């Protein structure tokens, strides 16, 4: 691209020149973006290997602790965790994020990604049990799932997020024992349908809501809230699957991470955070 001699430039030529420079800049930018995709993993492997793990937000404490332990047996390895809601993580993977291992709080998102050819053979590594958390002021009046029908301010998850879906399933499954209208009686007291489970917890913690339904692992982070379990025949237990990405930059260390999570040491760390073991290791 050769610019016209400067002294000859009229106004509109200047504008045209500016436009061409801009287009060139965009082109350079676009090609630069494309190029970084291919050589980056190789360059990174030459320095120090970095394992990239995408994990559901509820795995933060246990995975971080496991990461420290895992690095002790893998000298020079770096682990980058990306903790977020499973839906957000799924969108990032679909948009081409470089990921080695994906740990989901929900079977559905995992299956969608497997079907799309992004992930290979998932395995369930943990389960998480929904429980009722009760604020201090309501602790004396909520002792069982049935009491939710008489709670004044109840906060649950939005039906679009896993905890909200499980909550509605639990309320439906309670119909035979607590009456057909149980779900609508409870929903009449719902003051907010939160977009993630930590928001449900926060609202109960601050006393804005009297009670809410969260996972056992969330309840365990807040010792000052009363926890009321839900009967096993009614409860819907969340299953956490894990899988290595098909296009993983570091597939072998990724597989080792999955093995570690499912090992006795990994399971012990998960149990400390409040997770249940998978029903049958597959």
């Amino acid at each position, binding site marked *: 691209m050769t610019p016209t001699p400067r002294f000859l430039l009229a106004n509109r030529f200047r504008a045209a020149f500016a436009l061409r420079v801009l287009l060139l800049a965009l082109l350079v930018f676009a090609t630069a973006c494309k190029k970084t995709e291919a050589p980056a993993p190789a360059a990174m492997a030459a320095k120090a290997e970095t394992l990239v793990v995408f994990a559901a937000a509820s795995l933060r404490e246990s995975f971080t602790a496991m990461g420290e332990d895992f690095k002790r047996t893998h000298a020079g390895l770096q682990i980058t965790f990306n903790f977020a809601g499973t839906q957000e993580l799924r969108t990032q993977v679909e948009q081409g994020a470089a990921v080695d291992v994906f740990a989901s709080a929900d079977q559905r998102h995992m299956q969608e990604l497997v079907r799309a050819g992004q992930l290979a053979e998932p395995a369930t590594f943990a389960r998480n049990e929904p429980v009722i958390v009760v604020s201090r002021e309501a602790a004396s009046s909520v002792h069982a799932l049935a009491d939710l029908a008489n709670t004044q*301010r109840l906060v649950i998850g939005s039906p679009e997020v896993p905890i909200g879906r499980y909550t509605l399933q639990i309320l439906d499954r309670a119909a035979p024992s607590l009456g057909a209208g149980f779900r609508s009686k409870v929903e009449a007291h719902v003051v907010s349908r939160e*977009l993630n489970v930590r928001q449900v917890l926060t609202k109960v913690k*601050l006393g804005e809501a009297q009670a809410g339904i969260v996972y056992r692992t969330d309840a365990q982070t807040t010792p000052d809230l009363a926890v009321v379990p839900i009967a096993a025949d009614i409860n819907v237990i969340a299953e956490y699957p894990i899988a290595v990405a098909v296009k993983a930059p570091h597939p072998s260390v990724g597989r080792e991470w999955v093995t570690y999570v499912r090992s006795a040491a990994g399971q012990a760390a998960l149990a400390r955070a409040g997770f249940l073991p998978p029903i049958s290791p597959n």
Partner: protein
Amino acid sequence: MQRSVLVVLGAILAAFLALPVIALFATATIADLSSGLQHPLVWPALRLSVLTTSISTAIAVLLGTPLAWILATARGRFFGLLETLLQVPIVIPPAVAGIALLLAFGRRGLITSALCPDGCSITFTTSAVVLAELFVSAPFFVQAATSAFRRVDSQLVLVAQTFGASPLRVFFRIAVPLAMPGIVAGAAMSWARALGEFGATLMFAGNLEGRTQTLPLAIYTALETDLRAAQALSIGLVIVALTLLVFVRATLRGSRASWEAPP
């Protein structure tokens, strides 16, 4: 040539700002858009958004205009400090704003225990949505109105006072009309900010369809299941905001023309 350097630098930012908005429109098909607009969350959310942002903007203008006039005309370190303090809601993250609102007006809030000892609360109500929007958007209005008042010729105010005009008369007959373009622009900016408000609302007012679920909350809710629907809703929100901005620019141009016309 030297101008083209400035053009290129400016064009880089312009392209950066415009591209995501263009992508939002360009990657959606008409079918996506129409199915997105038929999403059950859309209309209650849109209605609620329009209602609450209208109220919050009205409150911001009603109370913010006198405040801006005081800030613009008062002297002293206290008012300088106050002006800075009133800008804080602009820089704090919205979710933190939501926590702050809960700690102030929530069930165990700072003033709730004094106002109403048996534990009433406006959390989870439509009023809470208005408060959250007011909190994050009013500082924009106050800032714009204050600088508009500062540009009012102090000679004119002085002359009016010499002729015996009362402070209120000076405010309504001189300051406000002269600062009107700035006030309108500030109101529009504050309205647009309120329309996009998400974090503080979610934290302080919760998310319940028809009562506290505004358009940004509906978009985020839809995003959990359906990116396409969320995109269609986002386009709807952008169109509403764009209409508003175009309307305000037209109003401003009209008013400026009438004010700046030679006598």
